[in-house]
């Protein structure tokens, strides 16, 4: 063998060894984090990856380009010695490399933009320390390097004479993958199928009251790094500064002191620091950093590596609440919930005042209805939002749907308490509601507030409340399809409407076709915003943010109102009483004549 052949073999072996290293590290991490990389999970993950492309977030296209680019180049390197005998395989690899190079180029450009943006956010919004910023830059440059190396390797497949150089580049990239990107990959494989709407609870009040465990053993919140559970640790340690969360976070966009990227990275660094497990996360994470989160879920759903930022936010909020670090506004909400079972602190006895005027029945023993209409506090008490409940009642009556409400017996679902970090108060309300619903034999529920809806549908089953819960837009679209609501069908009204998807309906529960169907059936012209469906932009009220203030540069609602105005629509349609209130305020301030209306109002107005 001549010298060049020896070099070729040596480089090839190095390349194979680096691939073996990736495999070994993957197995080791998956064992460490008890995430099993079964073929079934990997297939599920692959399916999920492609499904996420449909959401339209560019980051997933880039993510897929990188994943496939790395995959294809590894395969190409492994089979390189045989390629001379398999011209078809070579052609296939070359053909695949073209679109991948395109995707990788886009990823590279986006990365450089993110790097600049992220430094601005660290400097202006968060006043991050220099150490943090430098480490963050390095990690981002590592990602740039990995992309560049992969591009080089793919390009080199076009020049068989440079195969040795290709092995060298591939080996370098594989080492980077083994060190930096296996952990996030394993994390993703372990978490891709845990939906946004699932929320962990450190205890169950029912079990405490039954004496299954001692109340003094109940530990709520995370006071030191060691108290984060394995999934949370895997989450923050998997962040490789992609920055998709930061790019989609409405809190960051409104100039609040929060970037989901910085939050998880700071925790990861703190956990690895000197005192590691014993250090207090709240020395690194500020109160307003946590309160700034609206729990809209944009970060979680845009993260390509399965980081669940919200788990961490909730656990740290719980810690803040446990330490008594709530200001007057936030404690007032919780006290109101404790005293009056609604966040306003208004009389429970006046909850159903709107309904008696609208002729809506109250469910009682011996009286039955197909649907329980869960009104929610805002549409019960707020005069503006009462137009939602009145409109929906009118529609349901018109369509001959049998429904009734709980009246005074309806209590807040507890969602504001839960999102604020007061898990106990949430569960107290949940158990009370579940008992009430059971006593009345309720099986089907329709809700017109996405927060109530999500709570009833996704939170309550863990505490024994299982119902068929539908969102009112789903029911409306069913009624339209079945012809039970008489609508003009053709565009007679010529009103242009843009729809603001509610996070808890669209992103949390994948409901976005139904409201559009109902709107279009009402004869309006739908003009869409860029951020819609699962990539909708929060109004600023979620995560209990409706009930308190966080320092910010510009409100999310006014950013969103501008986006809505940009479509040229005359009406901004909402599907959530909180969105309605926030956007109504924002358009009032900007005074640009954009009318804000709930879907139920629009449908009810157009009924013939």
């Amino acid at each position, binding site marked *: 063998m001549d010298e060049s052949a020896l070099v070729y073999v040596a480089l090839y072996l190095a390349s194979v060894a680096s691939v073996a290293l990736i495999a070994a590290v993957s197995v080791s991490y998956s064992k460490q984090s008890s995430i099993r990389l079964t073929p079934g999970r990997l297939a599920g993950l692959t399916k999920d990856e492609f499904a996420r492309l449909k959401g339209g977030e560019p980051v997933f296209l880039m993510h897929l380009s990188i994943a496939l680019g790395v995959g294809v180049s590894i395969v190409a390197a492994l089979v390189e010695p045989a390629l001379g005998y398999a011209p078809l395989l070579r052609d296939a690899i070359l053909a695949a490399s073209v679109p991948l190079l395109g995707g990788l180029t886009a990823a590279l450009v986006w990365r450089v933009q993110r790097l600049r943006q992220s430094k601005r956010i660290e400097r202006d919004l968060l006043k991050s320390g220099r150490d943090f910023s430098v480490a963050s830059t390095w990690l981002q440059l590592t990602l740039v390097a990995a992309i560049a190396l992969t591009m080089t390797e793919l390009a080199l497949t076009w020049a068989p004479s440079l195969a040795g150089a290709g092995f060298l580049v591939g080996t370098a990239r594989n080492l980077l993958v083994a060190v930096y990107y296996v952990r996030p990959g394993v994390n993703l494989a372990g978490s891709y199928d845990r939906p946004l709407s699932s929320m962990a609870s450190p*205890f169950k009040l029912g079990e405490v009251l039954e004496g299954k465990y001692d109340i003094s053993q109940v530990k709520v919140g995370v006071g030191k790094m060691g108290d984060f559970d394995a999934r949370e640790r895997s989450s923050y340690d998997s962040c490789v500064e992609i920055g998709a969360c930061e790019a989609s976070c409405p809190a960051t966009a409104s100039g609040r002191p929060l970037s989901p990227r910085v939050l998880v990275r700071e925790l990861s660094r703190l956990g690895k620091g000197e005192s590691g497990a014993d250090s207090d996360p709240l020395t690194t994470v500020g109160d307003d950093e946590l309160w700034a989160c609206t729990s809209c879920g944009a970060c979680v759903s845009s993260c390509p590596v399965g980081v669940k930022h919200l788990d961490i936010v909730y656990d740290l909020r719980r810690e803040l609440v446990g330490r*008594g670090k709530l*200001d*007057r506004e936030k404690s007032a909400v919780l*006290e109101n919930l404790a*005293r009056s079972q609604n966040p306003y602190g208004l009389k429970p006895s006046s909850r159903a005042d709107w309904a008696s005027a609208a002729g809506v029945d109250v469910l009682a023993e011996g009286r039955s209805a197909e649907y329980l209409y869960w009104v929610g506090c805002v549409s019960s008490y707020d005069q503006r939002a009462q137009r939602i409940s009145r409109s929906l009642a009118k529609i349901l009556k018109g369509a001959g749907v049998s429904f009734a409400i709980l009246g005074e017996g309806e209590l807040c679902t507890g969602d504001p308490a839960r999102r604020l970090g*007061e898990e106990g108060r949430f569960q107290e309300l949940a158990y009370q509601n579940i008992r009430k619903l059971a006593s009345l034999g309720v099986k089907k529920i329709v809700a017109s507030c996405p927060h109530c809806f999500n709570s009833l549908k996704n939170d309550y089953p863990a505490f024994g409340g299982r119902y068929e819960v539908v969102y009112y837009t789903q029911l409306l679209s069913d009624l339209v399809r079945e012809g039970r609501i008489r609508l003009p069908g053709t565009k007679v009204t010529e009103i242009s409407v843009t729809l603001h998807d509610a996070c808890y309906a669209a992103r949390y529960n994948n409901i976005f076709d139904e409201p559009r169907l109902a709107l279009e059936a009402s004869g309006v012209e739908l003009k869409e915003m860029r951020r819609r469906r699962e990539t909708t932009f929060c109004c600023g009220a979620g995560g209990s943010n409706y009930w308190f203030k966080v320092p910010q540069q510009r409100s999310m609602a006014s950013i969103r109102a501008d986006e809505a105005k940009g479509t040229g629509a005359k009406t901004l349609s909402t599907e959530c009483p909180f969105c309605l209130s926030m956007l109504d305020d924002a358009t009032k301030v900007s005074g640009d004549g954009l009318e804000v209306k709930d879907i139920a109002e629009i449908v009810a107005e157009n009924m013939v």
Partner: protein
Amino acid sequence: MNVAVCVKHAVDEGELRFDPAGRPLIEGAAGKMGAFDKNAVEAALRVRSEVGGEVVGVTVGGADARKSLKEALAMGADRGVHVLDEPHLLNPSRTSALLAASLREAGQFDLVLCAEGSSDTYSGLVPPMVAERLGYAYVGYARKLGVTASEVRAERSLEESIESVASPLPAVISVVSEANEPRYPTLIQIMQASKKPVAEVRAQDLLSAGGTHSVTIGSMFAHSTDRKRIFLEGTTDEAAAKLVDALRKEGVISV
């Protein structure tokens, strides 16, 4: 430092119901810890975190007053004293006598913290009465507190001025709501507080040496809580004049 904090299980005025004649149904009315009492508990907890020591919550009232005491314990007080008494509404003499007697029994206190007034009756008499009965110094309406081993310095919030004072210990201090933002006790903390010790004392055992002056309630009636919803019509000037007239008749403006 031994700190006592007095809390009242006050009538929750927001939940008050009335009989058809407009008399409030005080018996069985929902109660809650007085809004300002929370500021007193918070102030006590902050003193403890600054100079160490023990915080003892003290309440006078019926069985349901235990709820407010428990809330003080959930906020962080170390133990509680519950003086069981028939609800004697609106008699600060009796309340202060019971508090003073129970404080004498419960230990040697350097500081007794109270709210500026209860949120249901707001008389502002109990704290200075307790001071007078115990022979302690008294600083009323404090909005800032600084405590050392021998002295307490405070900023008093008076109607038209802010007064800085220094007082020797032991002292009774009443705090205003602007003094702090009281912490919210979580449901779990309230449940966990059930395990903290509470001493129960009967009022008749404390006041056996002599009663206090009686206060009888002659009558009680509700001010209408419904809004009148009167539209004042006419030209702008007429409507404005009508409004000013109405407000003067209501006695809510003094011009």
